[in-house]
């Protein structure tokens, strides 16, 4: 199996190109996906291949074009809607939460909504409070939708196929700092499951649960911990709804110590849910209380030192991990 160098951005694009080539019902719609090439250049070149009907530039009308995605899905298409960042998706929150997520149930099972919505998420690029928030954990609260958080090239490349096959609305959150991430991808990389977490690094002493950009920080921390003799297991959640408790609980049953890394705001974030599930299902396996390292509860500031301090960093992971192993100093 040959491998090649690609970026996360290219992997996402490949997946979309494949989908549009393979299924005439699939199309991409959103602000600047066409002529501009995508605000993060993900769809660059796609307008040229597929034309303006299938790579459809929309005006600034988040509520209407997300809702149009719902309607088009009902009408037999398989839309991929791009919302530039999850911050702007709040303009379409009504369509997502009150309509896309409820329609199947309200209609007694008659109308499913096979819609895929992609959005950028997260901080780290000094884009300040209206471009940097992490709302994937927030959306994961809503029944009726599926929430994907591809962190790896494999998932960036492979999750789209499953998302398009899923009969229900799927939200895909792409961390802004990952687009330029480069790595090896198998020549024939293709679809991957859109359920289930994955152990990215096995370990015995401690479980670190992470996702998105946090995965890479956690893996880096795990390397550093290894040098200190701490063997951390790192789990990539991959999917925030439905959560794969089983993988987490199974890991905790082995390591008895857990740290959850989540860029979202701390209070009421997805980290709390994971901690609570562990409490419910593995309380008696815990040697110490579950720890979490989350985004600080502040609108992300522009200044670099403040932004850095507002987000989980490797250093913070190391500190908590050491404490979990050695106890408070």
């Amino acid at each position, binding site marked *: 199996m040959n491998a090649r160098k690609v970026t996360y951005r290219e992997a996402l694009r490949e997946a979309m190109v494949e989908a549009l080539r393979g299924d005439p019902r699939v*199309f991409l719609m959103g602000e600047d996906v066409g002529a501009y090439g995508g605000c993060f250049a993900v769809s660059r070149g796609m307008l040229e291949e597929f034309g303006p009907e299938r790579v459809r530039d929309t005006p600034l009308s988040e509520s209407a074009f997300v809702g149009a995605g719902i*309607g088009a899905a009902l009408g037999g298409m398989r839309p991929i809607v791009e919302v530039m960042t999850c911050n702007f998706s709040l303009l379409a929150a009504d369509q997502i939460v009150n309509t896309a997520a409820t329609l199947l149930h*309200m209609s*007694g099972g008659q109308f499913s909504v096979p819609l895929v919505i992609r959005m950028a998420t997260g901080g780290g690029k000094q884009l300040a409070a209206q471009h940097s928030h992490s709302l994937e954990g927030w959306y994961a609260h809503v029944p009726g939708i599926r929430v994907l958080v591809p962190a790896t090239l494999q998932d960036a490349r492979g999750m789209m196929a499953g998302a398009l096959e899923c009969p229900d609305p799927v939200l895909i959150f792409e961390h802004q700092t990952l687009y330029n991430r480069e790595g090896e991808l198998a020549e024939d990389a293709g679809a991957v499951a859109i359920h289930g977490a994955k152990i990215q690094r096995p370990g015995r002493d401690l479980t670190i649960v992470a996702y998105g950009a946090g995965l890479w920080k956690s893996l880096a921390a795990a390397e550093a911990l290894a040098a200190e003799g701490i063997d951390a297991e790192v789990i990539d959640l991959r999917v925030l709804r439905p959560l794969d408790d089983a993988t987490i609980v199974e890991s905790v049953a082995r390591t008895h110590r857990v740290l959850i890394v989540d860029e979202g705001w701390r209070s009421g974030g997805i980290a709390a849910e994971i901690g609570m599930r562990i409490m419910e299902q593995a309380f008696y396996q815990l040697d110490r209380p579950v720890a979490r390292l989350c985004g600080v509860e502040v609108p992300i500031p522009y200044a670099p030192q403040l932004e850095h301090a507002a987000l989980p960093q490797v250093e913070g992971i190391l500190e908590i991990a050491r404490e979990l192993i050695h106890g408070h100093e």
Partner: protein
Amino acid sequence: MKLELQNADHGIDLLRQMILIRRFEEKCVELYAGQKIRGFLHVCIGEEAVAVGALGLLAADEAVVSTYREHGHALVRGIAPGAIMAELYGKREGCAGGRGGSMHLFDAATRFYGGNAIVGGGLPLALGLALADKMRGNARVTCCVIGEGAMAEGEFHETMNLAALWRLPLLVLCENNLYAMGTALAHEHAVDGVSRKADAYGIASDSVDGMDVLAVEGAARGALERVRSGTGPFLLECRTYRFRGHSMFDAELYRPKSEVEEWKARDPISQLAAGLESIGRSGEKLRAELELAADEVIGAAVEFAEAGQWEPVADLTRFVTSETS
């Protein structure tokens, strides 16, 4: 009321449909008092000419996206009265399996996409249905019914602009009953009427007396022809009036009784009955007969609903996500 002799049968059919809706909803009000129907119940009594005149013209495979005041639309589109009534009861035999209730009638067979209780929320959805048709080469229309209140929401603006930009086969049918709950038109919209609103998007529009079912039909026919010809969306306003409160919880503090009485004098059913009278058919006799027939249908619908089952509680979480078998 311009009814021609040769159209008498058609007129009678329109009368039949309006009477069915009227009697159906009068029954609903009664059942609500008897607590058979719960939650919010919004009836369209007084507004029947819009549903019958406009939606009656849609082809069987043309889609409707409606509001929470949609019993009339659902009946005209051919959802079985029993399935609607069972839904209002919350029974599993209801057209949404009892999960939706009065505000959320759905039916895949007749392409009835709700029953939406977010005012204006159906507009983007209808836009998307029309987009799908356009992309798939279907000439058929999607009809989105809204109240005039919905035209103040941002979704109206965004949807109109996109529908016009993309020349989508979308008919927006506005039931302008002069109030959004208790808020009178003058407090809802800086500019009355739809023509200047439609102009802002280069959309064709029309406004018609919504108490005259034949006028509604005429205007809707024109609108539909235009939309089906592929020139883009159309905004059709029907000026109408609800004879009852907004819902069952309305003290009607916001409008004078006299205004209600004035509009009642223009009852679309009475007007059509009179029109039939004027071409030599006995309007009142017809009306009585049709009411009897309607009551029979409604009686059967109530029986159907009464006999329906309660969904077992164990099935609560069905349909949150799809069941992939």
